[in-house]
């Protein structure tokens, strides 16, 4: 239950994102991209034993990015469609808010702490996306070379 409900909420939230980004049910895009969001949060929670949410976010975004690339190949849609939506539950919205609140309260220690932590999560998400899209580029080139299609 601890995992099911947050995943369900992130799934519903991601459907909201699909509506406002104008993702349609065509090619299963709406359901599959929202499922990516739920999948990411599920991985995040399953890695909860590490007690380090930067690493948890990193692993989750890698799973989401690989998932989006696979779905992009299967349904011939751009990977961004799945990735943008799948990323959303992992974005440190709470971190941004609490950083701001500590700043307003004049609590400098917590302000720095939360701020750097939030930055760390955003960085982990960025590096995760970087790694996977870089890896996919490599695989594409390897595939092209195998087919003998040298440009």
């Amino acid at each position, binding site marked *: 239950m601890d995992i099911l409900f947050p995943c369900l*909420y992130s799934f519903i939230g991601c459907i909201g994102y699909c*509506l406002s980004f104008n*993702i349609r049910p065509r090619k299963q895009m709406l359901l599959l991209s929202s499922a990516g969001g739920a999948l990411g949060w599920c991985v995040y929670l399953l890695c909860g034993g590490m007690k380090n949410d930067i690493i948890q976010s990193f692993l989750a975004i890698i799973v989401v990015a690989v998932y989006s690339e696979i779905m992009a190949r299967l349904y011939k849609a*751009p990977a961004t469609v799945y*990735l943008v939506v799948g990323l959303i*539950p992992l974005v440190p919205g709470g971190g941004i808010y609490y950083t701001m609140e500590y700043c307003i309260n004049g609590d400098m220690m917590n302000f720095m702490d939360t701020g750097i932590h939030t930055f760390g999560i955003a960085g982990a998400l*960025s590096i995760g996306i970087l790694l996977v899209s870089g890896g996919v580029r490599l695989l594409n080139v390897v595939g092209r070379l195998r087919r003998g299609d040298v440009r």
Partner: protein
Amino acid sequence: MDCIFDEIAAGDEHRAGVWDGVFLLDCDALLDIVCDIGCELLESGAETYRVEESVSRIVRAFGDMEASVFAVPTCVIVSIARTGGGSETKTRRIYARGTNLDRVERLNDLCRRICRGELDIEQARGALEEIRNQDVATPRRRIAGFILIAFAFTLFFGGGLPDALCAAVTGVAAFFICLVMQRLEANAVFVNIVAGGVIMLLAVGAVSAGLAHNIDKIVIGTLMNLVPGVALTNAMRDIMAGDYLAGQTRMTEALLVATAIALGAGAALMLTRLL
């Protein structure tokens, strides 16, 4: 094209002149369609490298020519070298950008079809117009999106049901602020400052009226509507594609928007504490 080449070979100079005219027109039409597709992709929130790649592939598919394409999130420049020497260039400046991922998918599909040689320029133009006339997110659907996001993410971040219901209402408010600000052609940073502030004021109002319990959960849930997820994702994918300039632009956008949200909410929070 083949028969035209034959006529040139026959040495008919008059014909050759006409052919040159046809070719120029062709080049113009080609530049027009690739610029339109590139612009449309950028305005719908595609990555910059996707725009450059699509445009150069379409040019290769249509004209068997090499194109130099330069795209940044605010501009597309396409230059095509003509076989007889000289070149044609077209520049498009992009002012307004939104997120319409369905359109990105349709345009991507159109590019694939063009590259498979299924369409000529006229047909491609028709298909593009069809895509343009289709599928804009209706305000009703976008409101539903804002409500769902605010509601679900308030629960997601640990708020209770009353908090989530209040967040749904602030979500509607956030939508109308974004809509009005877009009509007024306000800068994205400014929109987010105002939206963050209003959301915070509404949340504080709801909690002090006893309708909900957690200000923070309501505000975080509603602010998830404004979080720069597309900019962050595209920045990283552009950087990996070697497009550092575009990546940097998007990265700046993401950072500025995130800061603006915090700034707006913070200013409003300070205001309520002073009262």
